[in-house]
């Protein structure tokens, strides 16, 4: 379990590359925002991977900013851009999120760190409380950004899956969205593992979350073999 962040970083980086590649081919702001969210995800797991071998307060801050504060919010913002059709709403929220993210970065990189020793054999999630001094505003922003992002990403994926299920269309997108929703719940539950005194489990939840969401993305975006429509099938049958 100790070295899982290395695998998580590889999976998340590959996932981000796949999303950016789809954005390059097809466009869509939601893909760009998901890609940004995945870069934060990868920065968070990369921070954990680096801190397996060496400690730096800047890496710890980058880990907290990327992994704990911004990942869920930017992933959720992608889903909001995809689903909220009312003109200007999603764009305005993106600008607000950008400003809040800059504020969060300023607060984290100017936050003091204590002289408490960092133990390389323990996960960062189990000891950051004692090292990184977080103000009340940082704590509040962390909670708010995670609620906003998780509701957007999990809620958006579930809503999309529900629409495909109700209409009995695009089975691959229905399955893909269910996997994305399930995968997105994993890191969210990782926070509960920390509270329950199981900080190591955060690594497992991050790895499984990235893997399941990547699987969902591949399923949702893969070309599906399509059946001919009923009337077209009937005509073909009649000819044969």
């Amino acid at each position, binding site marked *: 379990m100790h070295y899982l962040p290395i695998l998580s970083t590889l999976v998340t980086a590959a996932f981000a590359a796949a999303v950016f590649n789809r954005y390059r081919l097809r466009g869509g702001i939601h893909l760009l925002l998901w890609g940004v969210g995945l870069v934060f995800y990868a920065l968070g797991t990369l921070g954990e991977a680096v801190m397996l071998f060496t400690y730096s307060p800047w890496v710890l801050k980058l880990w907290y900013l990327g992994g704990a504060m911004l990942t869920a919010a930017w992933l959720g913002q992608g889903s909001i851009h995809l689903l909220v059709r009312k003109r200007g709403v999603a764009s305005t929220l993106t600008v607000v999120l950008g400003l809040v993210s800059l504020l969060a970065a300023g607060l984290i990189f100017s936050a003091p760190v204590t002289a408490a020793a960092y133990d390389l054999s323990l996960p960062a999630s189990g000891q950051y*409380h004692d090292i990184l001094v977080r103000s009340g505003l940082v*704590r509040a922003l962390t*909670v708010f950004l*995670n*609620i906003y992002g*998780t*509701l957007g990403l*999990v*809620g958006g994926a*579930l809503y999309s*899956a*529900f629409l495909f*299920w109700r*209409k*009995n*269309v*695009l*089975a691959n997108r*229905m399955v893909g969205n*269910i996997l994305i*929703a*399930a995968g997105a*719940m994993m890191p*969210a*539950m990782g*926070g*509960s593992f*920390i*509270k329950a005194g199981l900080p190591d489990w955060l690594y497992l939840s991050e790895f499984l979350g990235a893997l399941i969401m990547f699987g969902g993305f591949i399923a949702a975006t893969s070309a*599906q073999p*399509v*059946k*001919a*429509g*009923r*009337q*077209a099938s009937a005509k073909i049958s009649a000819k044969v």
Partner: protein
Amino acid sequence: VKRPSKRFEPNNLTRYAVPAIMGIILLSLLAALVLVALAVLGLMPAG
């Protein structure tokens, strides 16, 4: 020329298992929100 159909034929898996899984994920989401709310209200130690 008719467009190819994107519809799928429902079976027991899509009829029962899919909504059950979606329900479990939704309940997990609600449970996570309740935990966060408890932590914010100080009824549970915040992380």
